[in-house]
């Protein structure tokens, strides 16, 4: 049963299994284990980024397709929810319509880009995605009448998902049972279900074909797989899941803007997460996203504390200035790629 749920994709390393279990438990009970707005917000972001990075891994790690448009698809889901909530008024119907339309639009755009460019060469696809994603980002900031431009959009979500909705008078384990909690579990279970679906996809006959294409597209075609169709399908599926992750993000934040969904920085972050975690493993997305998002949210605090502690020493406090957190993340990245070229998951599996 459990094995079937993870599609027979065992962690194949005791340590990896335990780490994954720990992350699952931590996320499942985050509001109770780490109460506080900031930490629950971090947990929700971890869930969403696990899903987003996993959907990217489907394309990159399994299909061998390099894309720079993943945040664009992410953004389409987010803006779908935002626009629907604004124009239809707050409500679950708006969330649903926004998510579905966003996902369909992402699939359609992925289909067009894929059919147009995957036929040629993988590198051509990468360049086209870069061009289209940049164009869309510019368009979104220009069309401020519709998209809110650089300021983004704020909107209302159903009351049942906000802290205004109370579901119990008593606190449970010191936590209020309110709409915000429901919202978190919507994000958690939404991400979990979609992640398990991705896990099934990569372990299906289709997933095997993708791996074959990644390994040797020439031979994959020769044994009878129409490579272009598989690549385009993988791209569309990946885009749909990315868009749904964006919808969850929009529901959680009640705000969308270029910086939170479309920016090129997030695209780079996704790449880092998938590489650090381990490409072509799905579980790498879990590890990579968890490490990265937590670091992003807490590294600055950590650095701040360290800076204060070392304030009397020369140079060091300068290096440990919280504003330098990206530098340290870069160092971390270089080290991890150097020591674990197959990512953390690849490394753990080799030993285990």
């Amino acid at each position, binding site marked *: 049963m459990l094995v*079937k749920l993870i*599609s*027979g994709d065992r962690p194949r390393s005791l340590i990896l299994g335990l780490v994954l279990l720990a992350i699952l438990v931590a996320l499942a009970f985050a509001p109770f284990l780490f109460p506080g707005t900031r930490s629950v917000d971090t947990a929700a972001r971890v869930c969403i980024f696990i899903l987003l990075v996993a959907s990217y891994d489907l394309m990159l790690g399994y299909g061998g397709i390099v894309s720079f448009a993943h945040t664009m698809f992410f953004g389409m889901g987010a803006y779908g929810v935002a626009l629907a909530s604004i124009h239809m008024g707050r409500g679950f119907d708006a969330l649903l319509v926004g998510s579905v339309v966003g996902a369909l639009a992402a699939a359609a755009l992925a289909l067009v880009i894929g059919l147009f460019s995957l036929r040629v060469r993988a590198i051509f696809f990468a360049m086209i995605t870069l061009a289209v994603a940049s164009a869309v980002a510019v368009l979104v900031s220009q069309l401020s009448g519709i998209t809110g431009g650089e300021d983004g959009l704020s909107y209302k979500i159903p009351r049942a998902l906000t802290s205004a909705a109370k579901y119990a008078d008593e606190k449970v384990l010191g936590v209020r049972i309110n709409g915000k909690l429901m919202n978190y579990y919507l994000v958690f279970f939404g991400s979990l279900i979609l992640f398990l679906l991705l896990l*099934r*996809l990569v*372990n*299906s*006959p*289709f*997933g*095997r*074909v993708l*791996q*074959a294409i990644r*390994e*040797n597209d*020439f*031979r*994959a*075609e*020769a*044994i*009878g*797989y*129409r*490579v272009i169709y*598989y690549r385009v*399908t993988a791209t569309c599926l990946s885009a749909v899941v990315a868009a749904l992750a964006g919808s969850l993000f929009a529901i959680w934040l009640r705000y969308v803007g270029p910086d939170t969904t479309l920016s090129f920085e997030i695209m780079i972050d996704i790449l880092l997460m998938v590489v650090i975690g381990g490409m072509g493993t799905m579980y790498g997305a879990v590890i990579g996203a968890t490490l990265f998002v937590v670091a992003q949210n807490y590294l600055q605090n950590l650095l701040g504390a360290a800076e204060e502690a070392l304030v009397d020493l020369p140079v060091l406090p300068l290096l440990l200035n919280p504003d330098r957190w990206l530098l340290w993340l870069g160092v971390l990245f270089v080290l991890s790629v150097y020591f674990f070229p197959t990512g953390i998951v690849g490394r753990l599996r080799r030993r285990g």
Partner: protein
Amino acid sequence: MANTVLETRDLTVRFGGHVAVNNVTCSFNAGELTAIVGPNGAGKTTYFNLISGQIPASGGTVHLNGRDITRDAVSVRTHLGIGRAFQLTNLFPNLSVLENVRLVIQAKLNKGFNLFSMADSHTDISLAAEAALKRVNLQDLAAQLVSELSHGNQRKLEVALLIALEPTVYMFDEPTAGMSVDEAPVVLDLIEELKDDKTRTVLLVEHKMDVIRTLADRIIVLHNGALAADGVPAEVMASDVVQEAYMGKALEDV
């Protein structure tokens, strides 16, 4: 001939000014094993590439069972019955030996777009793959990654993929090249079995004359991309033109 399976008509390809395959018109029949010989660079592999579709023809046509397949994609031709083993080993290196064969059978059964079942739950595919591995004596290495295999075993797997495909036309491009003397017989026996079946169409590019002598029903000679001779082995091998111009010392050796 009535039982023509594969036919090329005026098949030609040019690379810039160089004509690699030049107006080759030739048909291949069911139950016949045709050896294709010729010096290095004669165009044998390129002729194969035109038939299986990796390279588009500059002119001429390819017909399979009467159907013009010249414009069909590689994968389409595979489904129509063209099967190919490559001269340079061409596998999926970071997948297991078994998975390599499974992929072929999965393609043949058209299950590639099965998105939501678990691949390993298709036991019919796994069983067929294991059977194919057994035929080249690789069953004990099924779980290994292909990249960990010796060169000889990779060559065997290359052949196993073609065997697993069970196409109408089998194209072998120097299948035993780089194999040790004790490894080659497994592959040669397999090709002989295909020949003894009397229903398969087999094309075999081969340099070793003793192999050709025992296996071939017919030999065609390519030289500078053109068809230079075509006939039963004794005849073609004896012909002066082949002896002198194309086989050179190779024939004297055997």
